[in-house]
């Protein structure tokens, strides 16, 4: 603290150098709750099933949720800015269709990937233009493009499927790094997570995202080009949906219009569980990463114990609510304690 700040006469401030205060401060952090839950899951299931705490399994099961996790990353940015994109799964389907078409016309792996990503970007641009250009709420736009994108691939693909992909294309969704047991998808996710985390927390872009999330008006008055950033966010969502399309298509080696149905909500669930505020302005990348593995390994564990899929979605639902409720309650308690302390 510096000399000017002394202006707030000391007796009026309550200083927080108390170790217990700091502890409580930490405990009420959302990420902390998530980590606890995560450890809980690990411990419980490693006791419940002999197959859980197995290196190969632990690695291998990540195949199940990496595409969703990747789509969740740019969603953080959109949701932070008060937008949302519920068309990403359909974007995935559209770009998967594009890749199938290309490969059926004899394109090689590089071309296929490029086409997949480009279609993702185009879809993102489409959403972005409508949202920022015409000032239509993102949820409204993507509600429409959700049917449009998937609809297009269905219109062309009808009841047929693309099943011919080059051998090498299989690597993205099925391959392992070198001769290790680490899936390529997992590594790719971690790399992208680091990049996006850096973008969000260490760059001017990220700072502006926070600003917009808290008050887009004030941000605009501060010279932040709000629309450009919201546009970029939506394009990123398209691009990452394209990446996910490459991975998933490669993993299942085929394309149908109904690929990845309902994944928009699953990606959004990850973001929300990760503590990103739907009202905008709050959240960080770590929370989401923890959420990804928390949910992923929870599902894996329950699967090992042959829990029915329905009990899994019920658990997910409660988890979602609990993850918000617990810190919320702890915070109230904390605030109460503080006030009591002030009153001495």
């Amino acid at each position, binding site marked *: *603290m*510096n*000399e*000017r*700040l002394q*202006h*707030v*006469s000391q*007796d*009026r*401030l*309550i200083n*927080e150098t108390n170790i217990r205060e700091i502890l409580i401060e930490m405990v009420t952090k959302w990420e902390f709750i998530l980590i606890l839950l995560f450890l809980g899951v690990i411990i419980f299931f490693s006791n419940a099933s002999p197959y859980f705490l197995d290196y190969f399994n632990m690695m291998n099961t990540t195949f199940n949720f990496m595409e969703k996790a990747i789509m969740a990353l740019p969603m953080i940015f959109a949701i932070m800015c008060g937008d949302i994109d519920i068309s990403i799964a359909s974007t995935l389907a559209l770009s998967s269709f594009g890749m199938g078409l290309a490969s059926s016309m004899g394109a090689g792996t590089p071309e296929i990937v490029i086409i997949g990503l480009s279609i993702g970007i185009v879809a993102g641009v489409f959403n972005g233009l409508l949202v920022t250009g015409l000032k239509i709420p993102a949820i409204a736009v993507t509600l429409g493009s959700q049917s449009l994108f998937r609809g297009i691939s269905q219109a062309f693909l009808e009841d047929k499927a693309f099943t011919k992909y080059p051998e090498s294309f299989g690597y993205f969704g099925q391959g392992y790094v070198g001769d290790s047991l680490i899936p390529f998808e997992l590594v790719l996710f971690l790399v992208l997570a680091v990049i996006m985390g850096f973008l969000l927390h*260490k*760059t*001017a*872009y990220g*700072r*502006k995202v*926070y*600003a917009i999330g*808290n*008050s887009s*008006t*004030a*941000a*605009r*008055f*501060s*010279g*932040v*080009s709000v629309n450009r950033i919201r546009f970029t966010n939506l394009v990123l969502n398209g691009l990452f949906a394209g990446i996910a399309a490459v991975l998933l298509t490669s993993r299942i080696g085929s394309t149908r219009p109904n690929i990845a149905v309902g994944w928009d909500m699953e990606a959004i669930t990850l973001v929300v569980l990760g503590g990103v505020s739907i009202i905008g*302005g*709050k959240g960080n990348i770590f929370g989401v990463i923890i959420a990804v593995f928390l949910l992923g390994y929870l599902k894996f564990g329950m699967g090992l114990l042959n829990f029915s899929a329905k009990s899994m979605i019920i658990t997910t639902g409660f988890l979602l609510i609990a993850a918000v409720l617990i810190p919320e309650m702890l915070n109230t308690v904390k*605030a109460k304690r*503080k*006030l009591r302390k*002030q*009153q001495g």
Partner: protein
Amino acid sequence: MSKTILQLKDIAKYFPGIKALDKVDFTIRTGEVHALIGENGAGKSTLVKIMTGVYQPTKGKILMENGEVQFKTSHDAQAAGVVAIHQEASMFSELTVTENIFMGHHMRKKSGILDWKAMREHTSELLGRMELDINPDTLIKNLGTAQRHMVEIAKALSVDAQLVIMDEPTSALSLKEVDELYKIIRQLKEQGKAIVFISHKFDEIFAICDYFTVFRDGQYIGEGKVKESTVDDIVKMMVGRSLNQMFPKKEANIGEKILEIKNLSLPGYFKDVSFTLHKGEILGFFGLVGAGRSEVMRTVFGIDKKSEGTILLNGKEIHISSPRVAMSHGIAYVPEDRQQQGAILEMSLSHNITLPQIDRLSKFGILRKDSEKTVTEEFGNKMEIKAANWKVNANTLSGGNQQKVVLAKWLATNPEILILDEPTKGIDVATKAAVHEFVSEMASSGLAVILVSSEMPEILGMADRTVVMHEGRVSRVFSREEANSDNMILAATGHEEGTL
């Protein structure tokens, strides 16, 4: 004859991290206009919220005629005859005037369903009494700023209250409305009601108030009769020291023309606005609230898109398509609405201050904490912001301190042209003087300043030249010599056609 209507005993209000109020005693009597005075952050608004049941006191009790009362919600307060016009804008912009006035206490038929007809009539009657020409069915969002604030006042009057509290009611009113407000206050007084009047403008306090109580840092300092005191006494109580002069205008050495605006128009807001700005000059913009000055400035800053007109910087035409472009040309704009446009309330002070130049403060788009820190501290301290530290969110600061944050963040960009829109709105005397001193310093060091203000003394005290606007048009431009309150009012009310 005047009896105590409401009494606060040893009131305290703590917020996590700060004691907004502590050991406060406060007594309000009927038939009296009681001024509540204090620096920004003194705790005035907090007190208001306690008296109206918006906040519950941490300690202490509220007494009325028949013993202690507890206001759980503002309903309870209303029922006990206490209403307030709050400092924060509290209108529902998507709803009609009628509804805004009756929200919270709708009139109902015997059957229990809402009686819109009655409410509508009551509203137009009320507006009529306040000599406001507003259709009760208009949506608030289609009203001018001033009109909105008058509706807020009407809202308070719509309840038959014993005690009416006004927290900086004039901050967005122009003289015409202020006079209207005075009339209303006198009426209330005659009806034997009590009024608490919060303002940072001494002319108002001396014009309308009988009694005053001074707060500092959340504590009761003293009270007295307005007639028996001078501005200096009160200021001493407020600030703890007496102030050097209010408008420390430095002798301006006007340089060459830097900015020239030609026939700027924005449909619905202003038309054919032309003026010039020189280096080292303070160009005042006067007018009634709603005259469109903000819109002109917003257009110059690239927030609103002009429909016609040209903007020349140093003689060259420039096309300002966005605030970024404007900033790249060295233009900075301190907006009038600090809550919505100025500060980002949920962000830390330091992030607020560095936001406009965040790109410049980062390398290859990567943030540089150190340079952020230096900027924050340099300008934060210059503006004497009162806060626990630079990490607290802007919304925990009092109105005035928030405004200082906004000023700091724009001064930090070292602009060549600084546009100030109502920079001292809701700012206490001490800060005000500081801001003025600061502005004239900047000007004398060659900065070109545009000062939009609805406060006559400020304009007269600070401006080298003054553009007066009326209904979206420039009605006249005054030099410092010819400017005086009378002819400026005439121009502002459109009685005198301007000569450019």
